[in-house]
């Protein structure tokens, strides 16, 4: 193999080693500085804006790694993929991908997909409506609201500690 071919390979190997690190400490070091806590509050809201059901959970991720949700109902399945990207100015680009399979006796099974993005500040609350939000009182349908908040893990711990202290 010629030197010309070896050099880029060596460079690639070096770059990968730098990125991946060699041991647990490197991995933990990287994660402790880059972990993001994605807090999700899922709500089912009826047409008169009353929340009839809600569920909260938090997930740990890193920039560019999605948090994937699956919501199964009687006549539909929703896949939601929330991906936070930390920008160089420490703001956040939030990308939400929604896929909905809806089944009805009249129309069979239909598939809808959507991809939305929104630049936000860290900690700013964002709402995702995977089924839309145009309330039609004649149809009397409920809609799904996903409240998303992304914080660095350390800030999130401080945030929850302060929240507990305030109670």
């Amino acid at each position: 193999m010629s030197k010309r071919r070896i050099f880029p390979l060596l460079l690639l190997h070096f770059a990968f080693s730098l990125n991946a690190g060699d041991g647990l400490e490197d991995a933990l070091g990287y994660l402790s500085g880059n972990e993001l806590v994605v807090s999700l509050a899922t709500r089912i809201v009826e047409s008169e804006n009353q929340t009839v059901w809600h569920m909260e959970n938090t997930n740990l991720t890193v920039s560019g790694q999605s948090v994937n949700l699956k919501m199964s109902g009687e006549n539909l399945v929703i896949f939601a993929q929330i991906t936070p990207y930390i920008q160089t100015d420490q703001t956040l680009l939030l990308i939400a991908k929604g896929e909905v399979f809806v089944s009805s006796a009249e129309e069979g099974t239909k598939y809808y997909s959507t991809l939305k993005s929104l630049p936000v500040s860290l900690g700013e609350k964002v709402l995702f409506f995977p089924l839309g939000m145009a309330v039609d009182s004649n149809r009397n349908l409920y809609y799904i609201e996903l409240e998303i908040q992304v914080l660095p893990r350390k800030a999130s711990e401080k945030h929850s500690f302060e929240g507990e202290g305030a109670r």
Partner: protein
Amino acid sequence: MCPDGQILSALHDREIPSPWREKIQEHVEGCEKCRDQINSYHEVSRRLRHDPPGLKESQERVWQKIAARERLSTHVPLWKRRVSIPAPLMAAAVVAVIFGLTFFNLLPEKKEPSGNTPEVWTVQFENHNLEDLAELLKNRDSQVQVFIELPRSSPMGLQGEPQLLRAADYRRE
């Protein structure tokens, strides 16, 4: 140095991406303390999945409360409301409706605007069972971290285009 509980919990929940996952996994395999903690998470998950204490009862209770709330709701659809109208006015209204329908039927047919609905792809299946569809998508499930079972009694469907917006910009009507 051992990873803290939250990292181990994230490892158990498959939230840590490669290559860090493999490195932490390697440590866990060689560390009794971390292995015990991961095993305890496995045990909690297993119990919640197969033998959740009182889950069925509490689920039933919640569904019943939602159903009771729906029954108690004072919202009466327009078509069920009782209205008293004087007979001459009623007769005039019927005549007006008949006249209106006849008039609109004579007009040339107009195409409805497409509206703000998302693009639709129809997917054909041999039967319309969503469980079969879920089976087809099983490989997708391996990437899913959060599974939510929505209340069965809630009528849901697409209501316009999906939206992503800042909570501060959203006003409930």
